[in-house]
């Protein structure tokens, strides 16, 4: 177990990165440190292997004060994975994985066996990959090597600093799954830093939410989702997750669903300009607004093409009034009913003074649904009702 007591950290430039941190990291668990950038999560993690020394306070690992331990020796007993992977480009994969065992002066054959075992663990054939160089591997493979390199000397503690954030979404998912699988087998004490709430919920046993150098809330993902400590936590978790977790399928309002930056044009635009704009933004209609963003009308590409020959004309001459609009705050269901009743492809959302704020389109509705029911939750039977 790792315990941080009364930790403060002030950097040389006077920036106070951590303010009175008291934390316990339970053995055999994944603790995720999460928060916006600059919240001190990485600093907190780096205290544990003495890459950063606290200004005040004490850190103990299984009761031993780490300030009494030689930092180099300490680091060899703690696995370390960084965001940029940091494989040594001049060493083969086998050498990279065997770094810490070599530093610990293991027997050569033992290192070889260990490297092969670890490569197989992440599904990489040792015969194929041992003698390759990091540059010959894909990003996902490189970070797999980064992870097994941290496991090589079988440390009890592993620190991971946003290890998957630089990867593409598919590799990231795969590596998260592999980490969960490895953890079930090995039960390491893992301190995992991320800024991605989905990742935290997926892998964490305990989430530690930080902000401005302080711990805001600590708890299991379930606890944090069900009982967010304050508004910051709520906003960080995001409304959608909260709603999904609490089963409150509150009706969404149009503001949440609409596209915020629909294509608009001023009434004085010429028809050629309007056509160019539609082409560029790949839309078949423009909403015409004045300088105060008050909705004036609507032109479709047909109207523009129809009158295109008349050079003097502006969009103001060809636009049609917008018949159907909804006010902000209208429930989405009302908007959808309107759209289906009048066969509308889109529906403008306006404020009280007819100021144009957004557009409901079929695409925006689908996007909204995709966000509310993210594919990450595929194992839940939520799809049946949706």
């Amino acid at each position, binding site marked *: 177990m790792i315990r941080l007591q009364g930790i403060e950290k002030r950097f040389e430039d006077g920036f106070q990165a951590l303010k009175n941190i008291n934390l316990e990291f339970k053995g055999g668990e994944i603790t995720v440190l999460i928060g916006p950038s600059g919240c001190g999560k990485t600093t907190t993690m780096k205290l544990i*292997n003495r*890459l950063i020394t606290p200004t005040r306070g004490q850190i103990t690992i299984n009761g031993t004060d780490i300030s009494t331990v030689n930092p*180099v*020796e*300490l*680091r*060899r*007993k703690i696995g*370390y994975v*960084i*965001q*940029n*992977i*940091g*494989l*040594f*480009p*001049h*060493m*083969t994969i086998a*050498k990279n994985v065997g*770094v*810490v065992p070599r*530093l610990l002066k293991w027997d050569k054959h033992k290192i070889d066996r260990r490297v092969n075992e670890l490569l197989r663990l992440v599904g990489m054939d040792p015969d194929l990959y041992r003698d390759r*160089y*990091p*540059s*010959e591997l894909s*990003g996902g493979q*490189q970070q797999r090597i*980064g992870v097994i*390199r*941290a496991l090589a000397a079988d440390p009890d503690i592993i*620190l991971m600093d946003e290890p998957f954030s*630089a990867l593409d979404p598919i590799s990231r998912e795969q590596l998260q799954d592999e980490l969960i699988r490895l953890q079930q087998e090995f039960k390491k004490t893992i301190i995992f830093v991320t800024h991605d709430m989905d990742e935290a919920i997926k892998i964490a046993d305990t989430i530690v939410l930080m902000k401005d150098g302080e711990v805001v809330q600590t708890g299991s993902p379930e606890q944090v989702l069900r009982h967010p400590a304050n508004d910051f936590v709520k906003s960080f978790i995001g409304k959608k997750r909260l709603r999904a977790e609490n089963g409150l399928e509150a009706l969404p309002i149009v503001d949440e669903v609409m596209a915020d930056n629909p294509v608009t044009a001023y009434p004085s635009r010429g028809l050629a300009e309007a056509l160019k704009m539609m082409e560029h933004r790949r839309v078949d209609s423009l909403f015409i607004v004045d300088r105060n963003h008050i909705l004036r009308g609507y032109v479709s590409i047909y109207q523009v093409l129809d009158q295109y020959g008349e050079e003097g004309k502006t969009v103001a001459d060809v636009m049609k009034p917008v018949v159907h609009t909804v006010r902000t705050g209208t429930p989405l269901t009302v908007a959808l009913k309107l759209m289906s009743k009048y066969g509308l492809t889109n529906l403008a959302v306006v404020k009280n003074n007819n100021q144009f704020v957004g557009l409901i389109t079929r695409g925006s509705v689908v996007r909204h649904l995709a966000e509310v029911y993210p594919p990450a939750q595929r194992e839940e039977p939520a799809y049946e009702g949706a």
Partner: protein
Amino acid sequence: MKALDLFGGSYADFLRERYPDILRATAEHLGISGISVAAGCIVAIPIGIVLARHPIPWLQSVIFSIANIFQTIPSLALLAILIPIFGIGTKPAVFALFLYSLLPILRNTLAGLQSVDKSVLESARGMGYSAAQQLWHIQLPLAFPYMMSGIRMTTVYVISWTTVATLIGAGGLGDLIFTGIGVNKNELIFTGAAAAILLALLVDFILGNLEKWVMRKTGTTKSDTTISY
């Protein structure tokens, strides 16, 4: 060998007759260049390592300015300047050539060390490499090709400049050339020049192979296998 008719008489005879002189001059030449470059490495590489480790911008610019100034002084002028200080002979020549070798070696050492990816160093430190191990196992191997190219380039230059050093009595292949000019003996001029060229090419070739051998021996590759993230 039509061209050699220029020299009048048989060039082979000349070589046979003078070859102890030629050999001695070549050995001297190699000695002067070798000592200069070796001394340059001994001074410049540690300075490069220290500068890379503790980047002090003003110190770095001062050192580079000084080394730069030496670089811009014409070789003959530098040799002349050193006469009042060291007199004439081999010593001032070696010293001047040593000054010339400093900058390129220093610059390449520093560039090589600074080219090492920060994340590579961070992970090395985080995994428990001591400072010396980081230098020895990570930074120097990755910087090695840069450093070697600096050393090779310098060596080739120094071999050619050594030829001029004969003017202050340093000896070497320049002796043959300038004697040849003095007594109007084309064989001597040609032999001195050709030997200097061959020497430069040969040394560059040997150093190139040494570089490859060291990299094979340590199981490292050229750092052009840098990872693209």
